[in-house]
């Protein structure tokens, strides 16, 4: 994000970190009863994100899944019924670009190609940023490697079940994503060390070379597997190489490719390289100049996860305009909003509200940018992101229209279980009453780019 800002901050972030390191690790789960098998939330204004808004709507949750939604439902008589008159109900907010809760280990900035880094290894499930996001209605996050490297590490997808164990917070069977980057960050990080890459030419050549290496590696394994299939006794397994294996998985189409990319020319180059090596790009992240080439990118099926109105923090963000999201959407690109920030993640609903202002998105379109479309970026849109039967009961109760400046998340359910209740004393977290951690800093992409 804001580079000069974060460089000014880095020292204070360190201070908080060191001060908090003294707090003993004593987080413990609060004792809670199991959620009801059948839960009915009635009389709310229900923004489904998939099929419009239902006034005085009812949502029936059965065993953690949405069983029915509509003006009425056929829930069993013993269901727990909560009257939400006057409240608004949306799917849980989904952030397709976060660096929260990664123990400040966002970038393995020691090589421009680090595809075997697994973000789960840095995931701290008691980081305060998760709690603060939960209180903003966020139920699912894609935790990404930073943008120091042209090819970064592999993301972890979490459900924000704050207070549960680390493994219980992982989104079950979520697709694997890998983070790529481009532009100023890699060239700055490695250029400042007089290494390749220090230009955009270098950036892209580093990528091409990586995929050439991966092709050779794959060919070696393909040959070996062919011999094994033929029961050839002379078959010798090649050496397993984590880095090349991960790159091969990109070429095999096993990883969703998420690319940090700002400039119009770079979207085009990235698409050309993807085509050359035969992989698909799931989404461009930041994508601040997408409005310039949206008509060209739309047919590729690549989506974007963009900021609403951040601009000017560096040269490649100079042409950012707040109409980017809606203009790109109108041109046929799938658009999600994202935080890339421990601050903005707490108010993505209002970021969506800005889309009504900047470009005249309908409220339906706006809420979709932080729910269903964000779920699509991660590849979990068949499970979360809208209020539809069969989907996970990840739901947020708001005091008023969530797109308003004055909106507050009052209750957050994940898999039908209540994880945040602003009316509860203390943190308002039924599953957590221990001590939180702080990784320090603002959780933004660019913050730790230099590994400083």
């Amino acid at each position, binding site marked *: 994000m804001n580079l000069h800002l974060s460089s000014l901050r880095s020292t204070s972030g360190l201070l908080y970190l060191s001060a908090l390191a003294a707090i003993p690790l004593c987080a413990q789960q609060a004792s809670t009863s199991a959620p009801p098998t059948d839960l009915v939330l009635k009389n709310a204004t229900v923004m489904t994100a998939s099929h419009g808004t239902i006034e005085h709507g009812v949502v029936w949750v059965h065993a953690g899944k949405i069983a029915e939604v509509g003006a009425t439902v056929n829930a069993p008589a013993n269901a727990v019924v909560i009257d939400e008159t006057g409240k608004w109900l949306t799917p849980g907010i989904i952030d397709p670009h976060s660096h929260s809760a990664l123990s400040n280990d966002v970038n393995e900035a020691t090589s421009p190609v680090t595809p075997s880094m697994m973000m789960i290894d840095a995931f701290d499930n008691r980081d305060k*940023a998760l709690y603060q996001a939960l209180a903003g209605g966020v139920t699912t996050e894609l935790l990404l490697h930073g943008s120091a490297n042209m090819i970064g590490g592999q993301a972890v997808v979490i459900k924000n079940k704050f207070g549960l164990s680390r493994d219980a917070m992982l989104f079950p069977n979520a697709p694997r994503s890998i983070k790529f980057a481009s532009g*100023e960050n890699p060239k700055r990080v490695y250029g400042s060390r007089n290494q390749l890459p220090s230009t955009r030419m270098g950036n892209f050549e580093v990528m091409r070379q990586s995929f050439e290496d991966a092709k050779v590696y794959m060919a070696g394994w393909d040959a070996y597997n062919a011999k094994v299939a033929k029961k050839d006794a002379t078959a010798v397994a090649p050496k397993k190489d984590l880095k090349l294996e991960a790159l091969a998985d990109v070429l095999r189409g096993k990883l969703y490719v998420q690319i940090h990319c700002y400039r119009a020319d770079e979207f085009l180059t990235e698409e050309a390289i993807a085509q050359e090596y035969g992989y698909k790009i799931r989404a461009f992240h930041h994508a601040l100049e997408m409005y310039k080439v949206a008509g060209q990118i739309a047919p590729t099926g690549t989506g974007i996860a963009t900021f609403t109105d951040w601009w000017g923090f560096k040269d490649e963000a100079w042409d950012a305009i707040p109409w980017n999201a809606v203009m790109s959407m109108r041109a046929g690109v799938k658009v999600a909003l994202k935080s890339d920030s421990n601050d903005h993640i707490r108010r993505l609903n209002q970021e969506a509200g800005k889309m009504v202002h900047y470009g005249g998105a309908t409220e339906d379109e706006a809420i979709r940018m932080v729910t269903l479309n964000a779920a699509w970026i991660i590849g979990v849109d068949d499970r979360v992101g809208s209020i539809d039967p069969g989907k996970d009961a990840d739901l947020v109760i708001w005091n008023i229209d969530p797109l308003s400046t004055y909106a507050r998340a009052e209750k957050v359910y994940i898999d039908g279980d209540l994880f945040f209740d602003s009316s509860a004393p203390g943190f308002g977290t039924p599953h957590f009453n221990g001590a*939180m951690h702080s990784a320090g800093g603002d959780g933004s992409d660019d913050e730790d780019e230099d590994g400083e």
Partner: protein
Amino acid sequence: MTNFMKITSLLVSAFALSSSPAFSAANDSSQSPAKKGATLAITGGKLLTVSHGTIENGVLLIVDGKITAVGAAGSVAVPKDATIVDAHGLTVYPGLIDPDTTLGLTEVGADAMSNDLSEPSDEIMPHMHVADAFHAETELIPVARLNGVTNAVVAPGTDDSVAGQDIFIQLAGRNRDAMILGRDVALALNYGADQRRRGGRGSAQFPSTRMGLITQLRQSLLDAQHYEADRNAAEKKSDKPAADKSAAAADKAADKAADKAADKAADKASDKPFQRDLKLEALLPYLHGERPVVVGVYEAYDVESIMKVAQEFHLKVILNHVTRSQEILDEIAAWKVPVIVGPIYELPRANERYDAVYTLPAELQKRGVKIAISSGEAGGPGGAHTVRNLPYAAGFAVGYGLPYDEGLRAITLNVAEMFGFGDKLGSLDVGKTANIVLANGDPLDVRTDVKQVYIDGIAQPMVSRQTILRDEYSK
């Protein structure tokens, strides 16, 4: 180079597109001045006066850039030759004022050459005048103006303990002189971890601790007081021949005995002119309490430490930030100092409730503290690229308990009053500068669209570098 080319080509296309002024010229509204003495009448809108409530179906008259009448339809006579602006369905409110920005001191955040934020050579830099660096033609100003921000305080970056002196600007004008309404309106003072470490903790450079910072500051203020005494003595000495000739010679003679001691004390080099010390001299108006000192500080214990120094030297304090001072709000209220609270988006510490900072404006206001709200992002210097989000920060405070009227006041009249412009700006009142915004709804709501901004009664072009890009690529 790339940027320059881009800008140039866009400039050309922008002018080809329309005759509306664009880019650097967008800050200059003098191309379409209203006729002298002509009346502009904004009628039918919902007036949020800030000073005296809301007027549904109101009428606002503007002559020569000043508000000449405010009232309900029917209670204000609209002259026959007035130019009528129909504001039915629109909300009309005074231009917003951001109390803490770096507008004109930064362009591209990461581009060092486009930043003039902090002078890092020393911690005590009161002689840094923001007016000397303010870039009136910045592309950031039209962007902020489009969302209804018409005035702002510009303060230096926050690296230094004493960072320099602020300006108060209007977000329109032909050049710097037209845009700066007040030079050196306040002294920017910062205290806390950020300043401590910039000397490099663990390095040999003083000051590397809070003890060092406070000692250094206190010594500087004492030095300034001592300097003033020396200067006064030197002035009296050099004044003497002139004074003797004056009609007040008799009075002066009475002072002579006292002066003699000073004369004797003066060193042998008394023929030399007194050498001014610009740095120490810059502190004097603030030691005299003539202008406010904006004290940027976050943690409760830091607030208490720096306030001790401020009180010792009778500084006229405006507190800034205080986002981690929840435990001393009563104490802050007892000091009877105004507070710029925020950024409201400052992150609470671990193990604080999620709304610890969101509720701060409401908690302070409840205790009778006069508050202003700023637009900055968490942890950094004042807002620049984010200034356009000022109304949303106030709205957020309202969402967490601040009464609506107080939220609007915290980004208009309260800011004007804190910085000495309370008689000219910040409300819809007769005699005030006609900085007025027309929007299609609640100004504090993110969904609201600002339709027209008036500064000095002149309709501003609703154009920024960003709208030009939008329009260019919408074709």
